[in-house]
């Protein structure tokens, strides 16, 4: 047979059709990966939180993809990551870029201010949005698929206020907070809780982003005669600097902080200056489940340092595993079905404890109060909403 133009075209067409129809079945095409979007703050002054988020996601995805069935039917997770940097505009730009990447769910940055800035874009996309941002408002933004995997500031602030007033018998409570959405939201919650006890804060000081010298704030708090200080701060480095300056300026009343005070990095950076302070936290090492113990061990083996479990790596690790469990159960990544499954989720055991979704998408309903000694948290009590 001579290879004329007609035979060539017919032959090529048959070969192409055969390749398209039969070839994948013959060699076994790789199952389609499940694309998961993530937007940690990888650069800027919150890169510490972002790097912990990145590591937690990476660990969870590596563990899931190492299973024979991967997520389900051999489909692995594939992470599509964009940098939220340190400002809201960048976070929104990163989100817009991510939404063009055929993703089925997004793990949001931990900063509430960025989550709130992204909300108008999120509203028009029915996919699950997993957040560790604790501002109460985050689950009230009208975003259908929003799920929070940490205790809200409402629970944390109430626990902090009750502990200071009822357990430490404080009568003059001062507040020091960051001026971002997290800090102001938390401070507002504390003020509301104090009002329920017929109290007002004797000082309510906020500091601007990237501040390093807190002498003015601390002196005002000292001058107010405060017998307890409640701190609502996200950045572990800020927390450590403030603790150092509080001690060096002779502030001695009890200090009760938001989760970043019990953050591993904050405790390791503040060292002895953190001794005796209390923190309302999502997680205390030593009082954890088997899931958490396995997470701590594998995280250290993988990254050679301890994780910041609450605000950093724990909630994202739980987010990935929770999504995997839902996908595995429904054998589908359909976003609407996934949102419905997450809304009815009860009793999921994760690193941060037991997750039970409520109508707003809140999944954690308790915090622990811990006392810091020698860079370690010691459980004082657990407070439920």
């Amino acid at each position, binding site marked *: 047979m001579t290879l004329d133009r007609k035979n060539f075209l017919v032959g090529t067409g048959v070969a192409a059709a055969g390749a398209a129809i039969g070839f994948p079945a013959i060699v076994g095409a790789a199952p389609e990966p499940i694309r998961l979007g993530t937007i940690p703050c990888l650069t800027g002054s919150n890169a510490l939180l972002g790097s912990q988020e990145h590591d937690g996601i990476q660990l969870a995805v590596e563990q899931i993809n190492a299973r024979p069935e991967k997520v389900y039917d051999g489909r692995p997770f594939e992470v599509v990551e964009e940098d939220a940097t340190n400002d809201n505009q960048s976070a929104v730009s990163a989100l817009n870029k991510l939404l063009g990447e055929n993703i089925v769910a997004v793990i949001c940055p931990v900063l509430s201010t960025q989550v709130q800035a992204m909300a108008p874009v999120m509203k028009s996309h029915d996919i699950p949005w997993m957040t560790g941002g604790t501002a109460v408002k985050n689950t009230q933004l009208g975003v259908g698929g929003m799920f929070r995997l940490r205790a809200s500031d409402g629970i944390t602030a109430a626990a902090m206020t009750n502990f200071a007033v009822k357990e430490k018998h404080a009568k003059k409570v001062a507040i020091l907070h960051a001026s971002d959405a997290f800090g102001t939201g938390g401070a507002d919650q504390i003020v509301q809780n104090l009002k329920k006890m017929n109290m007002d804060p004797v000082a309510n000081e906020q500091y601007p982003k990237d501040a*390093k010298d807190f002498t003015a*704030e601390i002196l005002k708090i000292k001058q107010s005669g405060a017998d307890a200080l409640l701190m609502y701060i996200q950045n572990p480095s800020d927390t450590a600097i403030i603790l150092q300056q509080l001690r060096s300026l002779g502030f001695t009343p009890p200090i009760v902080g938001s989760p970043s005070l019990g953050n591993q990095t904050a405790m390791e950076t503040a060292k002895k200056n953190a001794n005796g302070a209390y923190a309302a936290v999502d997680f205390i090492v030593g009082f954890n489940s088997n899931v958490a113990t396995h997470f701590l061990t594998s995280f250290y083996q993988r990254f050679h340092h301890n994780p910041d479990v609450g605000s950093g790596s724990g909630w994202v690790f739980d987010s990935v595993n929770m999504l995997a469990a839902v996908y595995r159960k429904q054998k589908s990544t359909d976003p609407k079905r996934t949102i419905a499954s997450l809304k009815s989720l009860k009793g999921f055991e994760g690193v941060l404890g037991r997750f039970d979704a409520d109508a707003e998408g809140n999944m954690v309903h308790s915090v622990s109060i811990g006392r810091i000694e020698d860079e370690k948290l010691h459980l004082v009590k657990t407070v439920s909403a």
Partner: protein
Amino acid sequence: MHFDPVANLQLLVSGLAIGSIYALVALGFVLIYNAVGVVNFAQGEFVMFPAYIAATFALPAVAVFGGVVHWQLPLIAVYLLVIVLMVGFGLLFNRIAYYPLRDRGWLPVVISTIGVSIFLRNLVQLTWGSQPLVLPPLFPVDTIAVGALHIRPQDLAIIGVTALLIAFQYVLFERTTLGKQMRATAQDRTTARLIGIRVGRIVAITFVYSALLGTVSGLLVAPLFTVTKEMGALIALKAFAASIVGGFGSIPGAIIGGLTIGVIETFGGFYVSSAYVDAIAFVILIGVLLVRPSGLFGERVAEKA
């Protein structure tokens, strides 16, 4: 709010300490501006980068490139080592960021310094990651209590070292040939070259000196502020404002401008609002420029009709 003399003294010490840091960094801005006619936007990284190097050599364990190093050298040895390394850094900065662009106008050099600033921040992120580091303080005690007054020895060290550096700089510029050559180069590079001054060498020395001013600032504030890759940015911004308040190009202006901004923002944070402490610095800047556009010590420039 009642007047509390102890609180005011505390604020003054703290304001002078942070103002001293602004002054040192502002001096770095001014010296380079005078020598080569451009603003060095990497001045904040001259504060941050040596602090990371110092922490690496001083701490018992520091994560570097994913591994862990265990140097823990004595603090004095660390300081000397960092100073030597930063001399090399200043020379390298001059050779890479300035020298190849020296005849192409001011804009390429400014862009080059911005590029180095971004490069250094990313280099730090890649090398040391995001964990903050804490450089040990110079003194074993955190605070000295005198009645109700709590003084941090580190604050006193900052003020003292700044005073010594200013005195050293006065002697250098007024009493030494090198200083006179630096001043001559700052005033008119062409004439300086004509009278036999090796301008290229003097410019290189200016970059080294500016890097060392940043190094001293970084080593002094690192025990108080923790070492992060952002630590130099806000200091540099305030120092830049200070150098404009003082009169850009004026050495006494940079010092007075730095101290003024440091003290006023600390008192402003206490008496007005700590939330607006950054705004206070820039309100001062605008106020001074409205009243005296050339700054407190700047030369008046008049245009002939």
